[in-house]
């Protein structure tokens, strides 16, 4: 439950940054936080109290595996999601870099030329 609440909190904090912060760097940080929150949430969904990590080459896990380990699928998914998150953050940061190098500012106010 704690994971659950924490992850939702993380997502909300991230969302808050995206909605309110006027600095593009902070918006990117917000996105990253949301991403992390989602990952924690996924892990917590597969988590079952009292069970261990789904690594099957440990000896006593070889029998009755499914009743001894947590759900392995969310963890596998999260691995992928983390990789994707890194990629998105990298792209985001490079876009921010380019934006900064053109206008020398990170204020979102200055990036409203496309509208209406």
């Amino acid at each position: 439950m704690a994971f659950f609440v924490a992850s939702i909190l993380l997502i909300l904090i991230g969302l808050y940054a995206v909605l309110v912060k006027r600095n593009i760097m902070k918006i990117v940080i917000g996105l990253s936080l949301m991403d992390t929150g989602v990952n924690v949430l996924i892990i917590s969904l597969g988590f079952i109290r009292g069970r261990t990590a789904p690594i099957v080459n440990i000896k006593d896990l070889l029998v009755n595996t499914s009743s001894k380990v947590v759900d392995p699928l969310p963890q596998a998914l999260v691995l992928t999601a983390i990789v994707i998150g890194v990629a998105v953050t990298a792209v985001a940061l490079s876009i921010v870099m380019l934006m900064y190098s053109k206008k020398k500012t990170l204020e979102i106010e200055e990036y409203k030329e496309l509208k209406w």
Partner: protein
Amino acid sequence: MVNPIIIIGVTLASAFFIGILQVYNRIWARVFFFLTLAFDFLVSGLNFYGFITGKIAKPILVKIGGFPPPIGINLLVGKAEAALGFLIFTIALLGAIHWFVRGLPQPEGKALILFLLLSLGATGISFTGDFFNLFVFVEITSIAAYGLVASSKDERALEAAFKYMVIGSISSTFILLGVVFLYKATGSLNMLDIAGKLAGGISSAVLALITLMILAGLLIELEVFPVNGWALDVYQGADPVVVALLAGAAVKAFYLVFVKTAHYLPLFSFFHLALLFGGMTYLVSQFFAWRQRDVRRLLGYSSVAQLGLLILAAGFFLNPSFSSSSRLMMGLAMVLLVFNHSFAKSSLFLLADNVKEREIDGWRGVLASNPVFKFSFSTSVFSIAGVPPFPGFWAKILLIFAIPRNYSWVVGLVLLGALAEVVYYFRFYRIASEGEGKKVGRNLASPLISSLILIASVPVVWGMFTDKIHIPVKPEILLLLGISLLVYFLGASRLLQWIASLGVLVYGIYSLYPHIKPDLHGFFLALVLFGGAVLLLATYPGSKKLSSSFYPAYLVVLFSMAGLVLSTTWLSVFVFWEIMSWASFLLINMGKGKKAAWIYAVFSAAGAYAMLGGIYLLPSLSLAPGKFYGLLPAVLISLAFLVKMATSPLHIWARDAYGESPDEFTPLLSGIMSKMGVFGSGLVFLYVLTALSGAGFRYLLGWAGALTAFFMTLLAVFQDDLKKLLAYSSVGQVGYILIGLSLFTPLGWNAALYHTVNHFIFKGLLFVAAAGIIYRVGTSYLPHMGGLIRRMPLTFFATLLAIIALAGIPPLSGFAAKWLLYSALIEKGWIFITVVAFLASTLAFLYCFKILHAVFLGQLQEENENVKEAPWPIALVEVILLIPLGVLGAFPNLLLNPINKVLSGIPGMENPGFHYHKALGIVSKLGHWNAFFLMVFFVGSFLLALVFFALTSARIRKVGQLDVGYSGEVPRTPQDLHFGYGLYDHFRRAVKWLIYPLVSKIWRGIYEWIGAFAEMGRRIYTGDVNTYAAYVILISIIILYAFTGVK
């Protein structure tokens, strides 16, 4: 069958490889890039071909890693997926071609890689059979797209990419969360597996919420209102090639997966979700584009609107409570819409790349210089705006008829949006076709795409007329329409085109002759064919500027009218009506009045869409008398016909459209095309209304006709442009026909049909004569003419007789029409209408005299000294048309007898209300008149006077033009004597309040107000990424809160 994983694998591998290759050799990297896309194109095409030919019978299931589903990841490629894959790589390939033609963006290698990744991701989205895999492909697509958008030369692209990235990240967070929760709730990620588990419909609120999360994420990617600000910014700022790939291909993959998700996770409230967001997006965006000045953003709004329509369609397609036949029809409409939009829109974006200016006003003149550009631009614009024969047109019909009757308000919404689309696309088209030539960049891809659209139209048209929908049509008509288009290829020589057109028309008469039967259809067919043949004769030699597509369009107008009058169902009336309208738009647009053509297009489209709505409301499409189904369908259907007849207050297009269309086309426009409105109104009176039920409506139309006659005549009196004067006059005369029709008595219809032919003869004659005059004099401005009687005696004689017929003076054919009409009016007891009509007839004398005086009488101007008689084809046609004018004057029965035969087939009209007496002539309840006697009398008096003058001519002294000093003043120039300018000025001052342009001001006001509102509404796209994110949260809350309905 090729394993679809090959497409994904090869593309991915070569994307990596290109990254290495381009470090060493750029050229080879390009070649390799192109080869990869070509390979993908071929392979996906092969698979698609397999599906449509039936060689691949069931969906291809690809197990990845050897695990069978639901454990392992899998690809599932059915017909739709294969089609979409093919679409994606077709557009990718064309985009790549455009890149090579235009020059690649920098840094080149990275752009190539990302381009491959984007097409690969989109393909993956459509191919995948697994929800988590879907998320992965969504991310691949998105990351590639962010990078590609940012790589544009435009500085603003970075900003667009950033906004796209923020909103895209939120959207994929939704998808990811939804997918994971879905796994938690169902224990599976495999689409089919989950679908099997949820086959009975979603019954728990938690599952409904999860489904909505995924759908919300996809809806953001599908650019629904109001979370589409990012998309519009991307469309405006990014490299058009990237935009083409995004809007044309990637978004369609999202759409497919949206439909699949909604299908696999059968959410009870999906229908309303789609209806709300699809409908809102569609309508709002169509209006937001209304006054958009940036071309790319305009196209963006249009894209968003099309997507909205697709979402709306998906709602109907997936709703299990509708009949399977209508859902199938909707599916077909969706396929056509996707195809149409993907190709036409990517073509337009690529074309936008060729014009340096972003502002729409900078596009002035782009069509004039480059025929290839013109071809691609016109095809794409027409295709998107739903002009026949392009797929968009048929998609609209299918979509509308697939909507069940209890959702008819959706039909209204769709048609309203379609009208707005016509308004702004044709405004765009008008601006592009105005002005002189302007240089545009090279483009190879857009002409290719346009040709593809054109080629694809053929099987679509074929399908519509034959198996799927079966719009009934005489096969001859389709053949003739096809042949007509071929005349275009003789473009080098107008003479050759003219001869070929005459040949085609003669063949048309030959093949359609058996259909001329004594009924309403046959009557109008005869008018179209024979009238058209005569008027076609007069189009030679034509002005030198005559466009090479003049004759094809002319023939298409003719044969679509033939198809129209031969229709047996309302649907076929609509289809041919639209073909006629759009072909005539092209013809009018060839003249100097581009704005006039635009207004014509808008009014035509408004009428046509109203008609489509009305037809939709009819329970039976066949043209046969039925029960009365309320006034609304009748009113809606009539609108189209009233527009074409230019009945007040729908007349404001007519003056300039007639006046500024090519002189070769105006006779057809006035003489025959306006009669299609007469034909249609007749159909409405006969088949939609019944004799009793329509009484009030008909009375109203009677008044509309009378007021049209009155006001148009009044406006004609003060008109100083020959063709515009004739235009007003023509519209006013058609008002009389409408009065006759509205009477719905045998006498009234006799008058109406008689006047139909009569109007064709004298109006054809007048416009042909006008063409001859303008050809010789070089202007249509009346004060610059005068005294042409000696220079163009034949034309004078023809005009004189035509005017006598027009004014309804005996002994020519016009008198019979007037006599019949007034008899009918008095017999019916519509006294006030009679008074107004009389007034209008009297006023008509004023402009009749004006034509004669200003053109032929008065003083010859110096610059017209060397004017010659009209060219021989025009003179020939004048003579041909004079014959029936005189013959019908003496023997009106020659026409009245066939009309009575036509009417005798209509219940209630068997007794014509008059009879023929040997001595008294035509006898009605009110009196009698012997046309032959009158003719003899008039001709006799004329001859008598002639003889008198001939005998006394010895005493006549001929004087020079200026030899007429009076009051001590000696005129020096012909202008001093000519009062063609400002004729009737006193009268004008007296009736100034009557000719105040109230109606056009109202229409203009409506246009401006809608534009102003749209412009205000667009401000919600503030350009601020925080606001955009706030909209996302807002609609997510709405979606999750309002649609968690469970059955």
